[in-house]
């Protein structure tokens, strides 16, 4: 086994309890400079609001314990800095370190959103340049940088659509969503006040244009499409789809999660898309950080521009940038204090590093995906034969015969030093293995991945039990998720003092 696994693995052995379990009264990790004004009497100043004791149970540890505690925890994580994440639709690419550096600059990290415009021209120029770049990349007319994540971007997109229809006299009732869509799409449509109507994909996993023609009634506000689809396949008839929708006064929303296949190659605006969101933490390299923060800007055609969240950025005659709040048709705000500025800075740094050459990132992403597809074809079942773009979807049909499914294979992949690919999505492929390598993977890493997957396929044929009971080399194995859901323990509590009766 050890000579088959060629990748570096994690240090799994040390134990590290909860920080509360190391806490002892009187230890301190941080000191403040001395108070330079008379000390106020909190009881007098706060009256009944006074919290007489410190926060009960709050940790009391030293600085080195904090450093060791979190350093040790970090060693239990897989990360892009360690190796590939073949996660489909997540676009786990390299997070450039210069992005971290510039986001932390004094004069950027320190700025207060309510400081006057004349003291914020640097920040506003950053926002303006990012807007211009995103418009150039998407082929759209206007953009909002306010949404805090992709899901919020989707909501803004749908609210813009709703505002447009309402202004035209009828908000309409339904949003059409393909059965291959990401879960945020229907969840968001409901929050935007629409009913969800599913539209089944045709035999190649694409939007069924004939069905679409029937399903687009005057009640339909929009179709939410992902392009490339969640199968990693380009929606070839998307201009036709746009026409059908537009002929009935409906709009086309594009989920931009898969922009990593399109940047520099084609532009959604040119394809007929009316509004779309981008995931800066996917296509534009901002770090996932264990689950956020992200940013989900929304780019749109002119017709939706008046409904943008406030404030919008305006350039005055003298070149000064201001934030304009007086926009009567705006949908309002979805988040306080503007967008996630720190994330926006990182995305702009990424774009500036590439410049017009950003196309090469897309080419390498598509090259990697197709290379993996070619070398794993035959080993794993390929349910849809149309060309893949930046991701490829296999199924576990061949392995099911030995009683092994995609979840098992994914867990066994961990033993080979990789993070699993996306399992069980999209829903239209039973037993899916959704693989997106991104352009950040070297040929060597791709080959290691391919070798690992082939080795696992052999294990499925020879020793399926080994795969079904994976992973074998991790710090914890087969965590009991059922118990966690039946009797949730969601916080640490100090041990109960023993009662006198028990003594």
């Amino acid at each position: 086994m050890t000579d088959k696994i060629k990748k570096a693995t994690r240090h799994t052995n040390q134990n590290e309890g909860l920080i509360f379990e190391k806490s002892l009264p009187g230890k301190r990790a941080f000191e403040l400079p001395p108070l330079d004004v008379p000390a106020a009497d909190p009881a007098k100043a706060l009256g009944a609001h006074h919290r007489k004791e410190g926060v009960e149970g709050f940790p009391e540890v030293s600085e080195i314990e904090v450093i060791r505690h979190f350093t040790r925890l970090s060693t239990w994580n897989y990360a892009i800095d360690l190796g590939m994440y073949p996660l489909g639709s997540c676009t786990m690419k390299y997070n450039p370190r210069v992005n971290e550096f510039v986001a932390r600059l004094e004069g950027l990290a320190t700025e207060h959103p309510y400081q006057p415009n004349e003291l914020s021209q640097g920040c506003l120029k950053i926002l303006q340049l990012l807007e211009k770049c995103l418009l150039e990349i998407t082929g759209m007319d206007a953009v909002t940088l306010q949404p805090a994540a992709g899901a919020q971007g989707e909501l803004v997109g749908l609210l813009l659509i709703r505002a447009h229809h309402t202004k035209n006299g009828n908000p309409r009732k339904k949003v059409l969503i393909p059965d291959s869509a990401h879960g945020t799409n229907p969840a968001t449509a409901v929050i935007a006040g629409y009913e969800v109507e599913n539209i089944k994909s045709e035999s190649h996993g694409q939007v069924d244009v004939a069905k679409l023609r029937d399903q687009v009634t005057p009640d339909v506000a929009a179709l939410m499409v992902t392009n490339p689809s969640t199968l990693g396949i380009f929606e070839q008839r998307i201009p036709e789809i746009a026409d059908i929708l537009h002929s009935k006064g409906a709009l086309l929303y594009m989920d931009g999660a898969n922009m990593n296949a399109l940047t520099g190659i084609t532009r959604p605006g040119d394809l007929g898309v009316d509004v779309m969101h981008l995931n800066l933490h996917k296509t534009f390299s901002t770090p996932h950080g264990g689950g956020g923060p992200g940013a989900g800007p929304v780019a749109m055609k002119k017709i939706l521009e008046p409904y943008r969240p406030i404030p919008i950025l305006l350039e005055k005659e003298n070149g000064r940038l201001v934030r304009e709040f007086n926009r009567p048709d705006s949908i309002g705000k979805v988040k306080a204090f503007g967008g996630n500025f720190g994330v926006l800075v990182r995305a702009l740094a990424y774009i500036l590093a590439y410049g017009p050459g950003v196309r090469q990132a897309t080419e390498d992403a598509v090259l990697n995906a197709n290379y993996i597809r070619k070398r794993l074809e035959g080993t794993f079942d390929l349910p849809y034969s149309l060309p893949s773009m930046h991701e490829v979807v296999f199924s576990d049909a061949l392995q099911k015969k030995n009683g092994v499914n995609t979840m098992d294979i994914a867990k066994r992949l961990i033993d080979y030093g990789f993070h699993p690919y996306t399992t069980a999505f999209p829903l239209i492929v039973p037993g899916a293995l959704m693989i997106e390598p991104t352009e950040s993977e070297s040929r060597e890493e791709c080959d290691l991945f391919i070798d690992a997957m082939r080795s696992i396929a052999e294990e499925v044929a020879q020793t399926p039990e080994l795969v079904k009971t994976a992973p074998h080399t991790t710090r914890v194995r087969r965590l009991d998720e059922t118990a966690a859901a039946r009797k949730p323990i969601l916080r640490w509590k100090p041990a109960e003092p023993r009662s006198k009766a028990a003594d």
Partner: protein
Amino acid sequence: MAYPTNYRYTKEHEWVSLQGDIATIGITDYAQHELGDVVFAEVPKAGAKIEAGKTFGTVESVKAVSDIYAPASGEVTEANALLQNTPEKINADPHGEGWLIKIKLSNPAEVGSLMDAAAYEAYIASQAKEASA
């Protein structure tokens, strides 16, 4: 597990058992097996009215949520108190201790049109065939 012959069954995998005009409702062994370990069940309280064919609650496993459809209409007289702390009863004894609610039927004729045990067993056999095709 055998399907009790005196119960009636729906295509959505609920079962009904009658005692006079009080019907006990639960999900079948097939359903609990498909769901996996049940972690939570959400059912209406006594006094709530349910309508045949409409959803009246959910049963959750770690990774999935299943809507439960009312096999017949009526007013809930009792919800199974055991489900609160031991939802696993639905897995262990789906046709017995894992019952969900009892209702007073408003239209007893509705139950008659449901499948009997033989028809249900044939139905799930055909479902299994389709799945592996």
